């Protein structure tokens, strides 16, 4: 019945000879392979697992993870997406003990399976850096887009369970973006705007995501792009509709080898204005300022510390810096943490504005992340997208100006 070619070892796993978790995982991988016409499974170098927040998983997700953890052990380097809370500092961020207990059980199940409890959406910043051309199985759309586009690794946009299945088997079905023929760009996007801030990159992602819905954009007209620029753009372009792969001429790998697609769109100032108009709500007082979607790099933390020097966060506003625990530890060593915390800012490690249970706690949020705005609206907040400077000013004054 199976059309996919399986090795003897894979057949054994599918029959249950390596236990329940390996059998369930093989069933998932083979079914997906059949649905998408994969010919075989391919070895993966690393896995990034999403579906960690108890807020999204619920009791059912927790039960499934506990069942897998009875005999499941990951076979490759496997890192974890953000959880629903800071695993150490949850009380200070207003998380209830009931939620914390459930979240810790989720984390325990992953730990038993041998997953590294990294709890970040930027695994490529903290020790899971694929090589060019490597097959990987990652979930977390911003990281998937970064790995495919900026690094040139190969991964589909996995869901939580399919990524975990890949980790427990060490393989993924070879279809979609694992195949060279599916990685050619479909639409030429010529950018005629000047990109000054991270929020501009986020807004550009909004524009391109909508114009290249479910397509692979080939982008020209962009002269330079820092790590943080690309990180922000990856998050936004895929959130607002594109496939998790793009090329920027002269900047990302293979961009000089691609044929420029015939279909062409242009991004001009009016489109950027449209993006900001669509993302922004009317906001006067700001309840929450959140920086770090995707998680802040050490350079971003340094900039925040610089902007907060000898200033104080307004008593009407909370300032959250979402980042990985590893980056926070580096910030501790350097002294950025002390500057930020003595100004009244708080670190939210292991979690972020997209997955923490924030609904009903804040009415408005300011951020420099276009993706963050998308998820905050889902949580019922009025959103304001601006530069890092604008956001820190809002945290200090409690108002958007």
């Amino acid at each position: 019945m199976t059309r996919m070619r399986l090795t003897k070892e894979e057949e054994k796993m599918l029959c249950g000879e390596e236990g329940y978790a390996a059998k369930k995982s093989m069933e998932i991988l083979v079914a997906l392979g059949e649905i998408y016409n994969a010919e075989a499974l391919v070895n993966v170098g690393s896995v990034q697992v999403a579906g960690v927040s108890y807020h999204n998983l619920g009791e059912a997700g927790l039960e499934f993870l506990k069942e897998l953890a009875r005999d499941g052990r990951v076979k490759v380097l496997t890192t974890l997406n953000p959880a629903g809370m800071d695993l150490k500092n949850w009380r200070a961020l207003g998380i209830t003990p009931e939620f914390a207990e459930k979240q810790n059980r989720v984390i325990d199940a992953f730990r038993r399976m041998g997953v590294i409890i990294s709890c970040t959406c930027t695994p490529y910043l903290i020790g899971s850096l694929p090589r060019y051309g490597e097959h990987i199985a990652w979930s977390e759309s911003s990281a998937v887009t970064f790995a495919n586009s900026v690094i040139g690794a190969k991964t589909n946009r996995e869901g939580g369970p399919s990524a975990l299945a890949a980790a427990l088997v060490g393989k993924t079905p070879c279809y979609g973006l694992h195949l060279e023929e599916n990685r050619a760009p479909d639409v030429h996007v010529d950018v005629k705007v000047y990109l000054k801030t991270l929020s501009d990159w986020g807004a550009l992602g909004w524009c391109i995501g909508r114009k290249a819905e479910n397509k692979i954009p080939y982008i020209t007209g962009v002269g330079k792009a820092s790590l943080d620029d690309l990180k922000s753009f990856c998050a936004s372009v895929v959130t607002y509709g594109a496939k998790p792969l793009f090329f920027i001429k002269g900047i990302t790998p293979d961009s000089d080898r691609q044929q420029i697609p015939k279909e062409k769109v242009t991004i001009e100032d009016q489109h950027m204005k449209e993006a900001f108009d669509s993302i922004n709500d009317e906001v006067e007082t700001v309840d929450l300022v959140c920086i770090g979607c995707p998680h802040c790099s050490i350079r971003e933390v340094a900039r925040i510390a610089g902007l907060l020097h000898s200033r104080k966060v307004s008593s009407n506003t909370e300032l959250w810096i979402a980042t990985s625990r590893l980056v926070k530890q580096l910030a501790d060593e350097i002294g950025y943490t002390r500057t930020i915390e003595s100004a009244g800012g708080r670190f939210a490690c292991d979690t972020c504005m997209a997955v923490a249970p924030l609904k009903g706690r804040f009415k408005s949020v300011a951020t420099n992340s276009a993706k963050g705005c998308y998820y905050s609206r889902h949580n019922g907040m009025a959103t304001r997208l601006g530069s890092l400077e604008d956001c820190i000013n809002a945290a200090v004054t409690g108002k958007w100006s």
Partner: protein
Amino acid sequence: MELRGRTIFKGVAKGEVLATSQPISFYGGVDPSTGVVVEKGHELEGQAVKGKILAFPNGKGSTVGSYTLYRMKRSYTAPAGILNQECETVVAVGAIISEIPCIDRIDLSKIETGDIVCLNNDRVRVERRKRLE
């Protein structure tokens, strides 16, 4: 009448069909504690999928939906079987982890709500037509 499709999760299931021409999002679209469809404006809004052979073209929405199906199975509110036109990741993974028999590539125009059908691996036998009652 017997229809043949592609097995997503093998097994035998028998029951009354609940059919819709609209995709279903299990995460947010179905209440796992009751099995009732709660998506606003959905054809099946207010109807319970518990114990039914649920026939819909394809899944949609968040991959968390796979876990929702699993939770329904554990709460005894899950459908007995699933028929799809073209299965996608969320429903496929949900059916596998919940062990709900699931077949796709079925011509759903040939069955309707109220039919009694039996799923057996890649086959669907229509045992009683609603309109013959």
